[in-house]
């Protein structure tokens, strides 16, 4: 059984998953949201390679697949077209602390040239525990920048606690980390205001 399949089963058992955090949950205020966030349409968002900000790296994580892959799906459900993007000049060296306090010059240098809206996700922590059942906890952080203006638009964190008691839960211990990360990404992006998708002109309609 592949890790993704295990995680999918775990997500099904736990009632967790992208749908809950990314689409069905009600909006909650993020840690930071720029006042002029909704002034214009934000699209497309370039998602840069994620930051592994963990102290405890004992759990192997496919960071790119788990954070960025899930984020694209959730963002699109919330009305934000998103693309995976190559890193900018400071790939692999930027930290979440630096992102949280980045000045305009630093923000403008993020991401590849031409990408205006840049999102960076980071895994802060993930852990699992095997008891009479098993549990998983994860904490992720996210930033959305407008590199043209050099400003932070949105910052938040997503926290997830998942777990299942009994023998079933014990059997799922290997998938708890992935289920927790997946749920945390959903919770994280649930604080992005839902963006209306612009109406597409009907076929045959005269151009305005």
């Amino acid at each position, binding site marked *: 059984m592949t890790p993704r399949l295990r995680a999918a089963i775990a997500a099904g058992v*736990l*009632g967790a998953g992208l749908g809950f955090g990314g689409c069905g949950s009600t909006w909650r205020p993020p*840690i930071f949201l720029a006042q002029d966030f909704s002034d214009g349409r934000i699209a497309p968002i370039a998602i840069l390679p994620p930051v592994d900000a963990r*102290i*405890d*790296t*004992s759990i192997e994580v496919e960071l790119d697949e788990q954070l960025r892959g899930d984020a694209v799906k959730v963002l699109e459900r919330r009305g934000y077209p998103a693309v995976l993007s190559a890193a900018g000049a400071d790939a692999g060296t930027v*930290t979440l*602390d*630096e992102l949280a*306090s980045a*000045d305009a010059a630093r923000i403008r240098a993020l991401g590849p040239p031409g990408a205006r809206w840049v999102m960076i996700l980071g895994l802060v*922590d993930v*852990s699992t*525990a*095997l*008891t*009479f*059942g098993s*549990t998983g*906890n994860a*904490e992720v952080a996210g930033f959305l920048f407008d590199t043209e203006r050099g400003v932070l638009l949105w910052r938040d*964190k997503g*926290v997830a*606690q*998942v*777990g*299942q*008691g*009994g023998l*079933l*839960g014990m059997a799922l211990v290997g998938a708890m980390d992935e289920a927790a990360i997946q749920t945390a990404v959903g919770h994280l992006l649930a604080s992005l205001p839902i963006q209306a998708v612009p109406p597409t002109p009907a076929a045959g309609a005269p151009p305005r």
Partner: protein
Amino acid sequence: MHPVRSAGVMRHPRRGAVAALVLVTAVGGCTAQPTTRAAAAPARAVLTPASTVLVLRPVVRIERLNDEKPLTGVEYGAEALGSSLSTAARGAAIASGATVIDCATATGSAWEPSCAALAAQAAPLARGVVPTAAGGGLAQLSTVQADAVVLASLLVAKVGPAATYNSFSGQITSDPSTALLSAALVGAPAGRVLWRNDALLRTVPEANDTAYQESLRLLFGGAAPGGDR
């Protein structure tokens, strides 16, 4: 030990007893030994007896895990936690043979302006981030003692939701609370980070907890061979 928190959805007395057993086991499984960065060297490795170290007052932040809302420090013994952190930081500097200036007792001395100027920057400095606003304080420090080094330390305790047990679905969760300790040595006046380390503890500790003391030892002693193990 821990602040009393609601256990969530337990209702039935007998199921509650089973749940309590599960929860105790679950929470017990999460209060593991602290973790530090694998390659971290001890703080003393970058100091010499010729060094002068300005030990800033540690910053202790107790916040809610979900949204970083600050919580009342008194409830979590923030002062005692900070005091232990301060003692450990000072001890690490003394162990290197360096001249140690403790900002907690530097009132009225030539070091006081530097301590005051850098106090507000202690948190980012401890994380190895040297903000532009720290430039003045570092410059001020180097006028008192050229090549002086600042030792900054930080404790961020993130208090998470309590562990839960749902007797109907069988779902359980464990307490995700953590305490992150960070420390860094920053050289004046350039603001170069000479050393930094973090230690993670999967609980909100009390000052006299063995695990907290072990975290402090790991933080300043490092995990590499030759540390204070």
